[in-house]
């Protein structure tokens, strides 16, 4: 535990302790249980979150696991290459493909899978038959709880070209020649991923918007109606402004995660044939780093992704605040 990241983080406490020794001593004596309780979480964060941040130096060197007797020696002794790995990454032919695939999937998700729960929540909110609404909600939440492996499995069973029900249905409607093999056609990959997300998360995603809708003041509706507002006016001028804050917060989180397509789902649905459309930053880091042992290049790719994500989430939050929303923090 001797990385620089951990050391610099410990410093402020040490300095404070010296300056205000008395009050710190008093706080520790009075609330020793509270500080003892902090230990598991803090130690865990130092080891599993901050220590890997120290490992990011790998991105700036030609890391070799054989450069020293232990990992720290390896990190210190490996050849330093500055931004060489980043140059290699940006100039490589893979980079444009990674960027195109990652942004393609993310923007498709943002355009389709992000508004879907908002629209569906508005629909559910209009239903007057309470038992129908409750039963429907119970059903549409189910897919959220099953694993992505099961979602992939269901997709496979329904779309495979041998006995997939939906494949056969499409083939009988438009002919076999016109029916794409969605499981392996690179052109279908974005649709496949977004479709799975829609199916898995749209229902569950409504919960947060429904709770926001429930907190809109009914008096606003009455006032608007007295002013002669119709159904669409009510939705546009009362309902949507009422849940705008929630939408903005969810949007900031989505924008910050634009380069995080996640690897579980994509790794599962990728295969030899659709690889050209399925390789994104997350799977690239896994394939290069963990499978092939190119630690430095993969760390550089991961770091690039993390920094861009951080900048985007801070930027989106700033924009939201400039527009008068409360933002994430």
């Amino acid at each position, binding site marked *: 535990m001797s990385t620089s990241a951990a050391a610099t983080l410990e410093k402020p406490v040490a300095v404070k302790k010296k300056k205000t020794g008395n009050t710190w001593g008093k706080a520790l004596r009075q*609330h020793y249980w509270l500080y003892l309780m902090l230990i598991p979480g803090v130690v865990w964060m130092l080891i*599993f979150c901050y220590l890997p941040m120290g490992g990011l130096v790998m991105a700036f060197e030609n890391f070799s696991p054989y450069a020293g007797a232990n990992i720290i020696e390896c990190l210190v002794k490996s050849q330093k290459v500055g931004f060489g790995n980043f140059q290699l990454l940006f100039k490589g032919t893979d980079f444009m493909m990674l960027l195109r695939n990652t942004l393609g999937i993310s923007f498709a998700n943002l355009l389709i899978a992000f508004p879907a729960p908002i629209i569906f929540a508005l629909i559910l909110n209009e239903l007057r038959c309470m038992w129908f609404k409750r039963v*429907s909600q119970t059903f549409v939440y189910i897919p959220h709880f099953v694993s992505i492996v099961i979602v992939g499995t269901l997709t496979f069973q329904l779309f495979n070209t041998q006995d997939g029900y939906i494949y056969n249905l499409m083939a009988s409607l438009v002919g076999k020649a016109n029916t794409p093999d969605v499981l392996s056609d690179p052109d279908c990959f974005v649709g496949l991923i977004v479709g799975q997300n829609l199916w898995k998360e749209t229902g569950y995603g409504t919960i947060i918007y429904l709770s926001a809708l429930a907190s809109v003041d009914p008096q606003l509706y009455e006032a608007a109606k007295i002013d002669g507002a119709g*159904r669409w006016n009510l939705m546009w001028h009362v309902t949507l402004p009422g849940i705008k804050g929630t939408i903005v917060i969810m949007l900031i989180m989505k924008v910050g995660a634009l380069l995080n397509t996640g690897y579980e789902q994509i790794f599962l649905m990728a295969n030899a044939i659709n690889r050209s459309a399925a390789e994104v930053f997350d799977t690239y880091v896994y394939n290069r780093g963990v499978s092939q042992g190119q630690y430095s290049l993969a760390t550089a790719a991961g770091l690039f992704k993390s920094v861009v994500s951080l900048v985007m989430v801070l930027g989106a939050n700033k924009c939201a605040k400039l527009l008068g929303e409360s933002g994430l923090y």
Partner: protein
Amino acid sequence: MAKKDKVVNGFNHRSPGDMAIQVVLYIITAIAALLCVLPFLYIFGASFATEREILERPFFIIPREFSINAYTYILKDGAVFKGLRNSLLVTVVGTAINMFVSCTMAYPLSRKYLKGRNFFMNMVVVIMLFGGGMVPSYVLIASVLKLRNTFWALWLPGAMSAFNMIIIKNYFQGIPDELEEAAIIDGANDLYTFLRIMLPLSGPVLAAVSLFYAVGHWNAYFGAMMYITDPNMEVVQIVLRRIIFLTGAIADDGSINWGPAGSPPTKAVRMATTVVATVPILAVYPFIQKYFTAGVMVGSVKG
């Protein structure tokens, strides 16, 4: 609720346009609800069907000819049940670790008078926004801590989720201070207050967060794929992935009489494996649904 709805929507209750819109909304909702459950029903039905029926009939929920060959195969093979047992172990111990670390972290951070609170809180915020990424973590877990082929590799890296911890912290903050003050006057120390006052009063949020963690453990497969190579330690998601995506045919050692079909029911075995892997989560779903919904609401309160 009903009264409020009337107020909201009641102004043109009987106009034909409004009725038409209502009908469309009901139809959309019904289709969405059906789309979410039909795949499960199909897989469930097909797992009891014969190979020929799966091939010949396009879509069915109740098979014409009932067969449990697929389940016989699964039982005999044993991999799926070994997977279920491993997943159960990973989930139970993993969730216990999660809750221990999250609650012990959440309570001190929920006390406004804690000296150094901002520093520790910032430590948490930083890990929400930035991390070392996959490769450094992999090197740490596999090479430094040497956790490969142990379940610790699945328990420790995600021992705490900052998001879930903050949900618990916010709930603790919402408990009236008077209760804590009364306990202190009675001579209780911080540990006693935590165990005897805070935890018992936080039932709903603890249930919701445990469920978040438990479902996460049960559904995870990537960690197991990276760190576990021992076939005896496969979790159920890995077994499912192997049978559906990686294996073409099902091995047959000739020890089971398949009846008139004469060969192991590959398709039905895939269906049945999916069913066995899905049933545990769907069986608890009706019980956990309300806690989950409550948890999302609690989580949406900022603090």
